[in-house]
């Protein structure tokens, strides 16, 4: 019953069933109890994903022991994976031109063969565990948060749909299926951001998220096309017809990966898709606006799971990026820029959720820095940061939701303060989350962010003289961003929970601690953000586990693993902790107690303040360079459609009228006129007959 093949299918299938049940029965039958299908399904999925994780870990251990036993055998599988194809979705024959030089040796006549193939490997198992557990906690939280909402059943339908899509996304074993569920999570994001669809800002935010995502998805689609043409197949795994892009055949001979211009193009296009989904510069503009949705949605989708889909995809495609170093460097650059940019913007935001949103963008930038460095420790560190970030960011968002719930929906930090007595549980759990985000030992964030920075410094020292300057810049910038992170996180913390107590009017009688359905997930996540960091980095057990993923287990990546053992690790840890504490101290100095220094600083640095508060005017730039030209373009076409095409049709329609009115003038009621017409007709007839 609990073998890997069955689990692979059950884990996504249960949320799908929950979606259908809630959609069908929610409105009329379940109503206030609409959460039950979702809770049961997601809970079961969570349990099953842990079972799967254990089974994969057992299989990996077995692989290790057998590997050491049969070291000389040639047919060693690279990493651990299990594939299961449910059915064939579509087969289109003879699509590609015959070309023998394709790296995947597409042997059987150039077909496009898409199947519903699911896979299990350490990366997938880890992602499934993270996704389902965070989803379960958010679902339980939502029972309390969305309690009085008229769209209760709709919320749980969408959330179940999202869980289904996300689990399928990480389990997909070909690019087409991945793309389908990539879009599906985008759809769920749109539906959930615009959940309160009668609010214009929410609807607009949902639209913005979807459209900006679309830009990324467009790049992703182009990347898929290029992949298809270059490799002749879209599968990750090997099939009898063709070797898979990330399958054993190609991984055992990495030189067959296409590099050069095509490889870089593929990498850049895939990165574009990841930018859209994971809110990297310049496609990050949708994430802050997405805070219009309910807070559980922000916690689940925009902190822990959907935005990590881009990181997952880039990790999965590591072989492709390793074959195109320029693309990897671009990933690094984008990650660094995004981290710094978001950090700078978050310094001055007054909306609590926006601060958290920008910090999410910034931390995602860190993950991409990790992926962009290109060594195995760095990549593993990126994924580890994804894992820990999911825990503490979800915690922070749920805590913010708790604060909002108590404050009657007010999110502006200037309007409330000093809440540590009224909301004690929220206060302490938020503190845990803030410490984790600021990367203070021994909280979770410290271990993962430190791993990234350490890998970065190792890369600095082993890079050549030309590129080491580049890596050095990124290193110092990421340290600086760490300081910024600590600063703005604790700025938000102090503004919310310290200072004179200040309750806005909308709070009314709500200004008390949240119900148990909401505080229990907070506590669980707080414990997690304390524990998971040091637990999983002991003996590098996370890294070793993840390194058995086929994409990370092949020779080229493994060769970079030596840089993990580096003496400078302790130095880097010391420096980053120092930076974090400096940030916290600065925030405490400015925001604990009276705030005249802040006012003075703001006035002195008002240009920088304006740039930061205005989000670097990126939204404005988008409006001017993209939206206005598009609107003008559309207006032009509207004019063409109305005036020219409609005008043409109208004119054509008026032709019978014109002809008719000309003909009408023949009917003037005068008898001699009619007689004249007859005579003329007779003359014409005579002329024809006679000539």
């Amino acid at each position, binding site marked *: 019953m609990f073998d890997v093949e069955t689990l692979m299918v059950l884990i996504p299938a249960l949320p799908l069933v929950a979606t259908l049940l809630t959609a069908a029965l929610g409105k009329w039958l379940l109503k206030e109890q609409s959460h039950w299908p979702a809770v049961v399904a997601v809970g079961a999925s969570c349990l099953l994903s842990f079972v799967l994780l254990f089974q994969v870990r057992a299989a990996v251990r077995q692989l290790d022991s057998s590997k050491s036993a049969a070291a000389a055998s040639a047919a060693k599988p690279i990493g651990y994976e299990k594939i299961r194809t449910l059915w064939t979705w579509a087969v289109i024959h003879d699509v590609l031109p015959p070309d023998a030089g394709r790296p995947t040796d597409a042997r059987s006549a150039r077909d496009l063969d898409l199947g519903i193939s699911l896979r299990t490997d350490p990366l997938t198992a880890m992602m499934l565990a993270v996704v389902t557990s965070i989803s379960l906690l958010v679902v339980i939280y939502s029972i309390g948060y969305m309690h009085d909402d008229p769209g209760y059943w709709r919320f749980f339908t969408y959330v179940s749909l999202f869980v289904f899509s996300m689990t399928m996304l990480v389990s997909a074993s070909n690019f087409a299926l991945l793309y389908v569920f990539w879009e599906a999570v985008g759809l769920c994001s749109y539906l959930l951001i615009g959940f309160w669809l009668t609010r214009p800002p929410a609807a607009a935010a949902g639209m913005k998220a979807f459209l900006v995502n679309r830009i990324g998805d467009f790049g992703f689609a182009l990347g898929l096309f290029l992949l298809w043409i270059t490799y002749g197949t879209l599968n990750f795994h090997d099939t009898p017809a063709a070797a898979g892009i990330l399958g054993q055949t190609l991984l055992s001979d990495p030189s067959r990966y296409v590099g050069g211009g095509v490889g870089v193009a593929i990498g850049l296009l895939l990165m574009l898709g990841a930018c859209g989904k994971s809110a990297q510069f310049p496609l990050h503009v949708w994430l802050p606006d997405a805070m219009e949705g309910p807070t559980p949605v922000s916690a689940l989708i925009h902190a822990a799971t959907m935005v990590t889909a881009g990181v997952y995809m880039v990790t999965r495609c590591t072989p492709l990026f390793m074959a195109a170093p320029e693309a990897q460097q671009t990933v690094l650059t984008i990650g660094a820029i995004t981290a710094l940019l978001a950090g700078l913007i978050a310094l001055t935001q007054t909306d609590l959720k926006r601060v958290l949103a920008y910090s999410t963008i910034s931390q995602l930038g860190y993950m991409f820095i990790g992926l962009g460095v290109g060594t195995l420790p760095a990549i593993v560190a990126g994924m580890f940061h994804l894992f820990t970030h999911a825990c503490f960011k979800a915690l922070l968002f749920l805590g913010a939701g708790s604060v909002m719930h108590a404050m009657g929906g007010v999110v502006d930090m200037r309007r409330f303060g000093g809440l540590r007595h009224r909301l004690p549980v929220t206060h302490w759990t938020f503190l845990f989350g803030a410490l984790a985000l600021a990367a203070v030992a021994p909280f979770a964030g410290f271990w993962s962010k430190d791993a990234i920075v350490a890998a970065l410094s190792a890369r600095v020292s082993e890079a050549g003289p030309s590129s080491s300057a580049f890596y050095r810049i990124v290193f110092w910038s990421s340290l600086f961003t760490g300081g910024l992170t600590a600063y703005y996180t604790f700025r938000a913390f102090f503004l919310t929970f310290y200072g004179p107590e200040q309750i806005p009017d909308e709070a009314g009688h709500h200004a008390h601690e949240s119900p148990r359905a909401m505080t229990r997930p907070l506590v669980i996540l707080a414990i997690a953000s304390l524990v998971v960091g040091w637990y999983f980095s002991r003996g590098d057990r996370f890294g070793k586990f993840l390194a058995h993923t086929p994409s990370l287990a092949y020779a080229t990546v493994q060769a970079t693993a030596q840089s993990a053992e580096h003496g400078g690790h302790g130095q880097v840890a010391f420096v980053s902790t120092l930076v974090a504490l400096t940030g916290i101290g600065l925030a405490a100095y400015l925001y604990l107690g009276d705030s005249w220094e802040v006012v003075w600083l703001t006035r002195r640095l008002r240009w920088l303040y304006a740039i930061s508060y205005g989000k670097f005017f990126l939204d404005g730039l988008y409006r001017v360079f993209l939206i206005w030209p598009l609107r003008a373009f559309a207006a032009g076409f509207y004019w063409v459609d109305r005036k020219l095409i409609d005008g043409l049709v109208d004119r054509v329609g008026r032709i019978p009228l014109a002809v008719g009115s000309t003909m009408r003038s023949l009917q003037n009621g*005068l008898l*001699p006129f009619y007689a*004249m017409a007859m*005579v003329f007709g007779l*003359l014409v007839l*005579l002329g024809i007959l006679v000539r």
Partner: protein
Amino acid sequence: MTGVQGMFVTATLLGALGMWLMLPRRGFQKRRWGALLAVVSLGLFAAQVPPLGATLDRTVFDVLALVTLVSAVCTVTFRSPVYSAVWFGLTLLGTSGLFLFQGAQFLSMATITIYAGAILVTFLFVLMLSDPRGRAYYDRLSWEAMLSASAGAVMVGVLTMTLSKVFSPDAAGPPVPVKPGSAAAAASPGETPTAALPAPPSAQALEANVLSAQHVARLGGELFGRHLLAVEAAGALLFVALLGATAMMAQGKIERFQRSHHGDG
């Protein structure tokens, strides 16, 4: 052929111009000039027709034709409708003479009796009942004089041009169906219908048939023999016309009669 065609075109144009001048109009009415042009045009048309053989025949025919045509023009152009009616009577006389010249004696007498005697008199009665003086504005105006004159002139031109083509000695004009009993069939049996006009019948054949001494009897025999059904239908038509005219005239009168009598009791 272009020269002949040019003649026809000129004649048509002159005729149109002449008629236009002669039609009633608001301003000047150059009747004399119009008459001159019309005469010239008539002469041109007539010049295309070869003359008849014998001098007497030719003279008689010319006089009759001239009387007919001149009185026809006068019918159309005089302003007073009574004058027009009288000129029409003269036209009928001319036509009757033309019938007689062809040897259709019954028809010539019938024209006089029925046409001039009955129809024209009815016209005059109606004129008396309405407005006989010809002082109304609508008698002094014509509607689109130029177009009407041109229409008539073009009609004449087209017809006479066709006729000249058919009757010219060398050309093979439009096919004329050969009548089985005529001299033409006897003259050229078995010829294809696309031949030119058949030869005219001989004098003896004519004497025996159309120009026979018992003209009326033969005409009567033909009418009541071969065309009996048509004659009966024509009789019915006359009867219906009589009834119809009476009914139309009586319509208003019957209603008024009934109303006035009902008013009495």
